[in-house]
């Protein structure tokens, strides 16, 4: 194998958004590793200035078509923090329920259509469906089950319209939610099969010693409540996020990378949540995970696909529990009076922690907005994975190694559309 070569992918497939990969191998060593984003900027933080706080859930949803609920959730939590509103009981449960729908649809999309084809050597899910029709059909039906739940509460799958600061515009009746339980019971079996199916995929022998970060709570698997914790002692409120995490420009890329102050790269997403909150999974999900051979800590990022499947199973079971216990709240939302203030919100998007901060004035207008999506937080970890993976596999021919590098990136289910509003264009001339 040549001692000097480059590995290049100009437009990465099967991810959301536009990213590119560049690796330079010199004298048999990785001299440079870049996962660049060339998605154009959209300026959300700029045009949020001067908008009314009630508009933030609808506007920030448009950052990402794949995880709009996550944006709506972090936005409403941050706004409620600023306005001194507490959403509890059935309204909070309903938020958790719509989030379950998003986790299911987003995870099923990634597991079956975007990620699994890499393990089995298919260009895409359509070609995989020719040889594995039952698997892909099961995946699509799982995805549909999540989408139906999301649309039932939110109005539609992409950019749902029913989420508002303080609760919802209209809450569903118990009778409206009940029919979803039938599909969810099917989905529970399908999700269990998915965990087993992903567990037998061929996994490269690869591990790194990561700092995993996620929202964590003593009573429940994280979605929209809790503190930010890590496996290396981080334990902070969302309001302290910017004291501990910084975004910086790295000299070889024009992207903003997040890192933990004095510590460096970290890892957010399903594998991080799974490793940090294993005990809060349902018994069925815990057993399925152990049986799949990923008892925590799992340090192989390729096995994120199993963790993602375990989270589908968890989300299905949680949705069933929430629907069974649901009683329609007395009022669809809690009213809030505008006031000066700053609010923070961190919730768990399918791809990892999503942080929002807003400063509001007395008229309820946004004076400042800051949004940190999961993918910009994972960017440094992705680049470090690429260096180590390529260093361990220098004997591989370039086309094979290139595909494997793409797979290293897809382990994180990157959402570049999300990341873009705070990432820089590559300027290389």
């Amino acid at each position: 194998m040549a001692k000097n070569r480059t590995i290049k992918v100009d437009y990465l497939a099967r991810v959301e958004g536009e990213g590119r990969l560049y690796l330079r191998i010199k004298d048999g060593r990785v001299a440079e590793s870049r996962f660049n984003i060339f998605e154009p900027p959209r300026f959300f933080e700029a045009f949020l200035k001067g908008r009314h706080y009630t508009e933030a859930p609808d506007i920030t949803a448009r950052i990402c078509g794949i995880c709009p609920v996550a944006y709506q959730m972090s936005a409403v939590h941050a706004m409620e923090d600023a306005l001194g509103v507490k959403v509890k009981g059935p309204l909070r449960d309903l938020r958790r329920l719509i989030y379950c729908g998003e986790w299911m649809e987003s995870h099923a999309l990634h597991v079956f259509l975007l990620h699994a084809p890499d393990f089995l050597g298919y260009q895409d899910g359509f070609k995989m469906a020719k040889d594995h029709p039952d698997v892909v059909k099961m995946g699509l039906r799982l995805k549909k089950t999540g989408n139906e739940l999301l649309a039932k509460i939110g109005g539609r799958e992409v950019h749902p319209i029913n989420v508002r600061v303080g609760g919802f515009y209209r809450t569903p009746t118990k009778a409206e939610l009940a029919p979803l339980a039938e599909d969810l019971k099917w989905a529970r079996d399908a999700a269990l099969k998915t965990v087993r199916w992903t567990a037998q995929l061929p996994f490269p022998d690869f591990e790194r010693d990561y700092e995993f970060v996620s929202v964590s709570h003593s009573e429940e698997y994280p979605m929209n409540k809790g503190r930010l914790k890590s496996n290396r002692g981080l334990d902070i409120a969302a309001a302290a996020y910017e004291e501990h995490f910084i975004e910086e420009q790295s000299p070889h890329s024009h992207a903003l990378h997040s890192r933990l102050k004095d510590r460096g790269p970290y890892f957010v997403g399903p594998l991080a949540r799974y490793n940090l909150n294993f005990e809060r999974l349902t018994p069925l999900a815990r057993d399925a995970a152990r049986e799949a051979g990923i008892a925590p800590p799992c340090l192989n990022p390729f096995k994120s696909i199993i963790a993602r499947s375990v989270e589908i199973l968890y989300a299905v079971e949680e949705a069933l529990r929430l629907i069974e216990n649901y009683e329609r709240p007395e009022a669809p939302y809690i009213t809030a009076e505008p006031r000066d203030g700053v609010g923070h919100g961190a919730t768990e998007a399918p791809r990892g922690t999503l942080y929002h901060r807003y400063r509001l004035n007395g008229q309820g207008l946004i004076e400042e907005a800051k949004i940190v999506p999961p993918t910009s937080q994972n960017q440094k970890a992705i680049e470090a994975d690429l260096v180590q993976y390529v260093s361990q596999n220098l004997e591989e021919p370039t086309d094979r190694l290139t595909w494997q590098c793409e797979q290293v990136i897809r382990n994180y289910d990157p959402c570049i559309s999300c990341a873009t509003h705070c990432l820089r264009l590559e300027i290389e001339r």
Partner: protein
Amino acid sequence: MARARPKLAVWKFTSCDGCQLCILDLEDELLALADRLEIAYFMEATRAKVKGPYDLSIVEGSMSVPEHLEQIKQVRLVSKFLLPIGTCATSGGIQALRNFADVEDYLATVYERPELLEALAESTPVAQHVKVDLELQGCPPNKYQLLEVVNAFLHGRRPHVESASVCLECKRRGNICVLVAHGVPCLGPVTHAGCGALCPTYHRGCYGCFGPKETPNTASLTRWFSERLGKSEADLVRAYRRFYANAEAFRQQSETLEQ
């Protein structure tokens, strides 16, 4: 031997990926679609790339950086039928809010070193740069309307896409009018149908995410909002400047209000 399948390409410009996702969200129809069409270029779904020309090109996203202006011409050149979908591709999207501001200020607000970035002063729709064959509005478009358009394309017929306002859909659903009965500002009377009157069905006013309908009477609705509901000019400007801010009818109305 079956006839060669028409080649489908899906292109992304500046967007949230939600429109492409509408294709993948057709869970029941997706595999049949992949049988009827050759998925020749669709980066969000496949690594495989088949060379053009393409029979059907679906475009998501707005033109917002200098290189887009050349790229969209190339896309037109290799496409027999060019179909922009969604607010970004058909009006410039939410990122067209910059069209009403100084893009340099926006750059400086979001980025520490704005000099490293290039962005066009305006975010614009595909049709402003090349000829398009059909447009499908919506943020996001209705996935079943998209399926109808693709189906019509496959059968060489005209697609059935309603051009009325959201009001008509509301009446069909039997909704009580949120504007008249509850005094909730609702853009339904001037907004293109297609969503199935979602917002009023969920007890909120339409916020115009399917863009203006044909010949919308925005002036009349604006008078209603200000005289009967007591909405301020600033409220009204924000109402028209959301997801279809750059569409002619909404743009004109917000600019009139500001004068």
